[in-house]
């Protein structure tokens, strides 16, 4: 497409002409008051990439008949889900609960296996125990510890097999670099609840360790404790970006 430098110059000048100058009364004070009550996040606890900037358009509802069919299907699904079935096979339905238990009494024995099975809307219920794993969640699921957060522990190792590479991001990282993780929430609106994530900080200060990485999406994290080098990390980590 052709450009018109004169038009663009005039537009730039006009834009500057209508731009506000100065700040609204009280805005800075309001910001600083909020900041005074806001704790800083440690970098190595969670590497945050803000959700991608997409304006999600509403999907226009179809014809009345289509809407009726949709309501009927939804009603049938809700009726099935209402049975609270815990299934052990494939073709899991929304609302399905997958139980993880190390003693074999659940659906699977590892969280990794449960995550591999789970799809949007599913719940993974993890029975008490220490699970030596690193997991990546990319679906909109709920991962919930069964009972007290201290009883359900995901312990991750600093290994090359479990690194997440964050894309370059102005201000954050000047180049892509691997981060060792316990849990990656990868562009998901997942819920993470009632679980302890445990790991070790390496001696190399340049090596980044993140108990939980939020890479896009708008996950909800509740009652998640982080323990690094045997010490609980007392951070208000119930963050909900976006």
């Amino acid at each position: 497409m052709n450009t018109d430098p004169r038009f663009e110059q005039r537009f730039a000048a006009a834009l500057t002409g209508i731009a506000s100058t100065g700040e609204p009364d009280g805005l800075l004070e309001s910001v600083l008051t909020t900041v005074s009550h806001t704790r800083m996040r440690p970098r190595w606890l969670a590497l945050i990439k803000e959700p991608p900037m997409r304006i999600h358009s509403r999907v226009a509802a179809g014809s009345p008949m289509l809407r009726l069919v949709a309501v009927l299907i939804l009603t049938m699904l809700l009726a099935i889900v209402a049975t609270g079935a815990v299934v052990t096979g494939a073709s899991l339905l929304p609302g399905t609960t997958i139980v993880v238990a190390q003693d074999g009494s659940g659906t699977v024995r590892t969280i990794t296996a449960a995550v591999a099975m789970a799809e949007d809307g599913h719940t993974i219920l993890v029975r008490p125990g220490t699970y030596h794993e690193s997991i990546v969640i990319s679906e909109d699921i709920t991962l919930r510890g069964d009972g007290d957060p201290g009883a359900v522990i995901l312990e991750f190792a600093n290994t090359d097999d479990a690194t997440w590479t964050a894309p370059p991001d102005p201000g954050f990282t000047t180049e892509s670099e691997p981060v060792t993780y316990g849990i990656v929430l990868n562009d998901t609106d997942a819920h993470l609840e009632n679980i302890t994530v445990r790991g070790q900080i390496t001696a190399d200060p340049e090596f980044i360790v993140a108990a939980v990485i939020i890479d896009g999406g708008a996950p909800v994290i509740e009652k998640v404790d982080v323990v690094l080098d045997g010490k609980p990390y007392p951070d208000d980590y119930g963050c909900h970006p976006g």
Partner: protein
Amino acid sequence: MQRELVERARSGDREAFSILAGASISRLYAVANLILRDGDRAQDAVQEALVSAWRDMRALRDLDAWDAWLNRLTVRACYRWARRERRRGVVELQLEPDDDVAGTFDFARDLVDRDDLERELGRLTIDQRAVLVLHFYLGLQLAEVAGILDVPVGTAKSRLHRGLAVLRDSMRPPSVDGLSAERTA
């Protein structure tokens, strides 16, 4: 000086942060106001951006990237506010052309009619406005704009051209002597 303040703020020095915020807040508010076209929402977006900046300051590795980072956080906050409005069913972000005034707008006038330009901006999508504001108001290169918006450079360029085309269509051809013609609306 700014670099030193950023370093202090990153270490948890709220006073340093307040100086940095005070130095940036007018620019950020102007950007947010141009993108959102709503003063109240612009204030909310700037507040959200600056609080995010404080909360995640320790993640800021490049001390010289402070301004770029704030721009990014502010634009992202604008998108979030626009999205919230969209979810609440507010759909005034893109206005329908007004037949009575479309085609009568001329940047060449000595005194630009503020209401007219704001109306023309309202005909653009937020994607187009964000690119135009970052490129023409902040003077950022398209590659930087694309980085802030998390889109390929080609997409940023396309939004820029489409936005300009919409505005150009609204312009009355200048009269022979270079002065704008009288308005007929």
